[in-house]
């Protein structure tokens, strides 16, 4: 029945249930305490975002700060909640390909429209 291993449909699920392998991959996931800590930071950053958006900072600076805060939140969720910080680098490579690709391509599209000119 060894050959059965060659089938993987939904079997990530089955395959990963090997205790030794899973144990190795799993115990490096953050603890519940750490998750809660990240959650609290996310809430604080969001509150900060809202507060900043009501402030009367110059327009350019305001946008810069808001994007920076969003980026930090984005990073926290991706790195901790989605475990990219702890997981195999190949997952990150896939995701970065999509994320960076999207950022670059669509920035060029907006540039073609001179969307930031005025």
């Amino acid at each position, binding site marked *: 029945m060894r050959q059965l291993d060659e089938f993987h449909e939904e079997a990530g699920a089955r*395959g990963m249930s090997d205790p030794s392998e899973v144990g190795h991959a799993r115990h490096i996931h953050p603890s519940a305490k750490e*998750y809660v800590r990240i959650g609290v930071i*996310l809430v604080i950053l969001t*509150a900060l975002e809202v507060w900043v958006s009501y402030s009367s900072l110059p327009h350019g600076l*305001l946008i810069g700060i808001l994007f920076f805060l969003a980026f930090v939140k984005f990073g926290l969720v991706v790195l901790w909640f989605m475990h990219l910080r702890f997981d195999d680098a190949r997952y990150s490579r896939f*995701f970065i390909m999509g994320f960076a690709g999207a950022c670059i391509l*669509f920035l060029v599209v907006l540039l073609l*429209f001179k*969307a930031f000119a005025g």
Partner: protein
Amino acid sequence: MADTTAHAAPVEHTSTGLPSTKLAMWLFLASECLLFGALITTYVLYRGASTTGPYPSEIFDIRYTSVSSFVLLASSLTMVLSLTAAEKRDFARMRLWLVATALLGMTFVGGQVYEFTSFYHEGLSLTTNLFGTTFYVLTGFHGVHVTVGILMLLSLVGMSWAGRLPDDQAFPVEMVGLYWHFVDIVWIVIFTVVYLIPQAKPAG
């Protein structure tokens, strides 16, 4: 079927040693980046391009939407707590956190429905102006993604409850979790780009 039982399970032999389902999920999320990228680009391109009102500044209630954002962030936290429970094989608690995540998700979607209706009553429909067009379609696409996520969460709870999940329940929870968190990070971007960055009413 012997291969799904707890300890007789074979290690999945893949060329990379990584489970195929998880690779596929990340590839799917990478693809979704382009999808939301295109939608957000459309929104950004048409910022301030509406030829008639109502304009965003007249209609947005940042405080209300902030609460929605907190709800969605909280649902990401309950999602990872469910994963922790699953990894500890505490499946009852896992299901509890999953239900909590689904409920928070429903609160978010409900909030969105309420928001849409109130905007509609203030005179902003899909066809009123470019703001209405791009706003409803972008946030609507996101809302549909959240709804699909809720369906997946509830199915997961039901299947776990009925004993129809593979023995390692943490794996499907992790997969659905990846999708759920992705929907959350999309909202992080939408919240900033659509709601927080102030948008002046166009002169003239």
